[in-house]
């Protein structure tokens, strides 16, 4: 008995990208999550983003921890290497993987439990190192897989299914990321593909740690009245402060922007983000004011979304380490081993 079914054709259209691949080639195994789970919408957005970005699937490494959310990597890009690690420890796996090979695309999928409780330390320190990866938190305010306990992202007053309100201060992934040195910090909603897909693309193109916190309702344990992570609550309180459009390298800009409100940001790979401010008084390039803005608006119950902070100049882990361009795992052994003569010579110092 094996219950893994083949990928289901969710994209009957056969549109191909420049690699000759269809969207179906970016799909994965059939989801085993609950029908309606926000996580599955994120999967769909990821598939679309990868397809449109025209990434060769096998050049992507998908990483995760443990949780319903952490199962996501099994549901997209079945032609990629994936690693489902242990609970809360995906960031360290990503760090090591990236250290070994700098030229793959790393996407990590985690949950609010996985990243903010057991994994908080690793999450924070991966950001400190400005590890080059897209890190998605599928944030539902609960532990789905263990059946609905509050997670650290549950808001004060948000009610459990049995009606008991959470009383502990939430740990907000976005504020944490800004405080810990994340160089690309965004929030979105699983129900808003429009906003989500360009953010995924931009996060992937960003050279450094891109955090994408996605409110992703748990229909089974946290989608009721009184929950502040339900579909309804999120829709009602969704506040977009910036809108980011993503334009891949060397693509003609077709959309016309009203100059004043739009800020183009060119990334390392030549792609551009066109950042449109929706909240006038919001400045996504200023850490302290951005975080004060988000904090005060969230205190009012708003779900502040968009590309919230970005610094495309911060050196990533390899830049800080001064690692050579050719991935370490591909270095020829002759480059790594100084050989017998050198060994003989260096031992003079031990006499």
């Amino acid at each position, binding site marked *: 008995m094996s219950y893994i079914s083949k990928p289901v054709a969710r994209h009957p259209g056969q549109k191909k990208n420049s690699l000759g691949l269809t969207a179906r080639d970016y799909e994965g195994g059939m989801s085993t999550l609950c029908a309606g789970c926000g996580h599955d919408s994120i999967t769909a957005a990821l598939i679309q983003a990868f397809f449109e970005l025209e990434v060769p699937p096998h050049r992507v490494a998908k990483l995760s921890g443990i949780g319903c959310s952490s199962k996501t990597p099994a549901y997209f890009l079945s032609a990629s290497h994936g690693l489902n690690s242990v609970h809360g420890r995906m960031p360290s796996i990503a760090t090591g993987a990236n250290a070994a090979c700098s030229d793959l695309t790393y996407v990590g999928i985690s949950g609010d439990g996985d990243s903010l409780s057991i994994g908080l330390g690793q999450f924070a320190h991966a950001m400190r190192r400005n590890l080059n990866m897209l890190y998605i938190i599928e944030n539902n305010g609960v532990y789905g897989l263990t059946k609905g306990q509050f997670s650290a992202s549950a808001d004060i007053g948000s009610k459990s299914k049995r009606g008991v309100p959470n009383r502990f201060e939430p740990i907000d992934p976005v504020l944490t990321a800004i405080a810990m040195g994340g160089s690309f910090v965004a929030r979105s909603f699983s129900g808003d593909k429009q906003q989500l897909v360009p953010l995924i693309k931009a996060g992937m193109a960003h050279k450094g740690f891109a955090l994408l916190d996605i409110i992703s309702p748990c229909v089974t344990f946290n989608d009721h009245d009184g929950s502040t992570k339900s579909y309804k609550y999120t829709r009602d309180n969704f506040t977009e402060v910036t809108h980011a459009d993503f334009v891949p390298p060397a693509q003609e800009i077709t959309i016309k922007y009203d100059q004043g409100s739009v800020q183009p940001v060119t990334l390392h790979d030549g792609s551009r983000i066109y950042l449109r401010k929706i909240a006038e008084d919001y400045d996504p390039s200023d850490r302290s004011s951005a975080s004060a803005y988000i904090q005060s608006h969230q205190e009012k119950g708003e779900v502040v979304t968009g590309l919230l902070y970005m610094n495309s100049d911060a050196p990533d882990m390899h830049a800080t380490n001064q690692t050579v361009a050719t991935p370490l795992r591909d270095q020829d052994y002759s480059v790594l081993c100084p*050989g017998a003569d050198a060994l003989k010579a260096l031992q003079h110092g031990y006499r």
Partner: protein
Amino acid sequence: MKQPAISKQAANNQMGLQLNDFVIKLANVNGTGSASANGLLSKTIFRMGVPISAKNFFPSNIQGLPTWYEVRVSKDGYQARSGRVDVMVAMNAETYADDVAEVSAGGYLLYDSSWPMNKELLRDDVTFLGIPLAKHCAAEFDSARVRILMKNVMYVGALVALLDLDIAVVEGLLEEQFAAKPKLVPLNMRAVKMGYDYAMEHFNCPLPVRVARMDVTHNQIMMDGNTAAGLGCMYAGATVGAWYPITPSTSLMDAFDGFCQRFRQDPETGEKHYCVIQAEDELSAIGMVIGASWNGARAFTPTSGPGISLMSEFIGFAYFTELPAVLFDVQRVGPSTGMPTRTQQGDVMMCAYASHGDTKHVCLYPADPEECFYLSVKAFDLAEQLQTPVFVLSDLDIGMNEWQCPELQWDDAYQPNRGKVLDAEALDKIERFYRYMDIDGDGICARSLPGVHPKGAFFTRGSGHNKYGAYTEDPDQYQEVLDRLTRKFKTAASVVPEAVIHQQNGVTDAVIAYGSSDCAVREALDRLKEQGMHLNYLRIRAFPFGEEVEAFINAHQGVFVVEQNRDAQMVSLLTLETGVDKNKLVPLLHYGGFPLYAEFVVNQVSAHLNKRKNA
């Protein structure tokens, strides 16, 4: 009935000549710069061609507490502590009483006679040699810091005279040491001379306890095990090192980093062909190693007991997903924080079985720094060949003390054994890649690396999986994988380093030891032989055990197993993982935190053998 102990004559009277066979111990205060003076002393002897061993006993703090340095001069090349103290340099007022008490009868004690000595602590059977170090240094040097440092150098000078050392060697060493600051050489030499002159003038130099040039160390080096292991990691081609600082393993990564800076960093561009990551903790460090290994780099982490405890969950993950990882456990005294600056072999069982569920791990047990080098390289080969975590269990004694050992050799023909990794070409050829198929029957399956070829794509998971690599909760499919892991572990037993055996036909009793106990055991066996007790010897170098281990035990009547832990952990492993009769195994356990010495083994073995004879 006290005699005037500090007499010129006394020095020569008490016992016969002890040429190149004695122990000098130096009692200092942590952080007073004594380490470099003491190193000068030991290296001088070493450069005179005389074998030595040197051990540091230091507290778990940074400054101000007692610390000792023990140099054993041994013409026979014994590396273990001897258990005696022939010359004590007692520079620490706080431990003075203990230090006096520790001198072996007939020995010497050198002290700072700048202040009146405590007569109550005098001993009849020890010769007290007072030198007014502080007084002279105060007169001679200006700054407080220099005075403190030069006091140390001055007693070295006195020892040059007392032990008949070659002052030219001392000067040569100082010149090398201060190559970048040549002005410091005359300063130091001034202090050396002060001590030398004082000793020549006031004592009957040299003492019967003394050094005479030999010529047996020219192919030898003095190196600590962490340095050797760090060097081994570089030679093995490791490119990713992740760690969290912890005594006594810290210097291993420092060494790797230092060697890589020297040999793998472009001096012009600064570009590095390696990446060392100081992780936020050990859970993260092992995760990084696993991530890097998954991606095809040779990666390792050095740590000590508490780190392994913290890594336990991830170790099981690597075991079950079959990813290589090299872990150095430089053991210190447990349980818990224990004594971080003392040595033990207390993690043997933990490393062999770390993590929940059914798990077994490959372990290597280097006996000395030399072997730290070779077994480090081997560890990477085994980890990749067997696709599993490999532990190198060194300890504080090996890792942090400089041992004299033969110059390290390297064979330029060596190529890393990367194990069964399918490259793009191989993947291109096969129909479909299944991660956990045991094609060769040795329990080892082929793996693929991310990004190399679309056909190699595969989802690694610590949850139940079948031989195809797919998720499963099916009992048979799960069990099939688990049983293959047992098969793989059998294969491991045939590829790990064999035990080292010293045996003679007709000998019925034997000793087994491993790791840092080796040197003391070998010395003990020599001494037992002198006393007419012949024992064979097997030194375990790896777990799982090769067949030779079981055969050796079966071939003997009684087997003493020497260990540096309370619970006879290697005896446990032997009992569980070989077919031998456990009643044959007699544990000899030494676990107070100081390195093992031969006498302990001699006494225990002979007591047992005599008891048996008289029974």
